[in-house]
């Protein structure tokens, strides 16, 4: 075993005998493009609404709930698809999230939420995962589209303007602190129902 490793290492270290430097350089460059391109393409395929809703767990539960909301259909025709909110846009964070998502593949294989009942039982913890993630990154995925700087509160309703002035602009709260349950139904809020931590608005 050790000898095999040593021999391979020796081959790697030895200059090439048959292939020219140009061939190896350009060949390596071209293969790099092919592999990196392929990797990135595959990654982006997993970042589409069609991919997310190809599982019944997503298409029958959360996707159906998204449909009547303003993030799916609205006056200006801009749609936030699943990855817009659930996957960071920046590369390194995206890869980190994708690695976490391998646990979701595990869940898919072993059917953690493969029935409506199982999904409803898990709904609170699933939602809390997302709430915690968005609280931790200061609602990054919201702010990919909605920024406080470009928010014209004079065009908002008085109560929305006041709430944003008091809590958003001061940094006291982040988007998700109040805007829970805007794209999917809320889980059983139990005692949290009467807590002031969540205020609704579209």
């Amino acid at each position, binding site marked *: 075993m050790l000898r095999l490793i040593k021999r391979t290492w020796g081959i790697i270290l030895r200059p090439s005998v048959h292939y020219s430097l140009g061939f190896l350089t350009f060949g390596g460059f071209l293969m790099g493009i092919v592999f990196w391109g392929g990797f990135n393409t595959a990654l982006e395929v997993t970042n589409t609404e069609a991919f997310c809703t190809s599982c019944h767990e997503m298409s029958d539960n959360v996707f159906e709930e998204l449909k009547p909301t303003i993030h799916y259909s609205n006056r200006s025709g801009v749609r936030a698809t699943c990855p817009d909110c659930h996957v960071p846009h920046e590369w390194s964070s995206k890869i980190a999230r994708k690695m976490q998502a391998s646990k979701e593949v595990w869940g898919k294989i072993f059917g953690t939420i493969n029935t409506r009942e199982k999904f409803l039982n898990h709904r609170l913890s699933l939602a809390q995962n997302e709430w915690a993630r968005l609280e931790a990154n200061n609602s990054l995925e919201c702010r990919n589209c909605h920024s406080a700087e470009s928010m014209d509160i004079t065009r908002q309703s008085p109560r929305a303007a006041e709430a944003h002035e008091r809590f958003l602009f001061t940094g006291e709260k982040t988007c998700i602190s109040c805007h829970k349950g805007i794209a999917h139904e809320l889980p059983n809020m139990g005692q949290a129902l009467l807590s*002031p931590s969540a205020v*609704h608005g579209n």
Partner: protein
Amino acid sequence: MIMKRLKNSAHIAALVLATLAPAGVAMAQETIATLRAGTPLAENAAPHAIAPVRNTDLRQVRNYPEQPPLIPHKTDGYQIDLNANQCLLCHSRTAIEISQAPMVSITHFMNRDNQFLASVTPRRYFCTQCHVPQAEARPLLENGFVDIDQVLEYVSGQEGN
């Protein structure tokens, strides 16, 4: 004997109906104002544009003291079900300091035996059963409602005469 009399009266009724019916139908078509606005029954009228919801956040007048207050804002997509009540996220006792919204009335904490519970009772849980937002739309039918002040004014006016 009785049977025969019944039969006769049935005949008469049929005769009366037969003579009156065409006139009645014509009259109904002319005089009964319906929300269909003259569209024949078998056809669908072009729907009205959906009226925008009044979103002023200004409290509206109550037409009588017991009237459930109107909702002065949009409530699109508010979830009110077994899991969550999004109205209470602002209007509950504990939320109003942050939201500055009016708290649900204390009567909503009373059960049917007039005992105050810790939170909103199940029978008062579904807000939109009584509280509704208002649309910026002309009423389809005119409403002749007058409130008690106008009634009193009218009565005192009559007494004055």
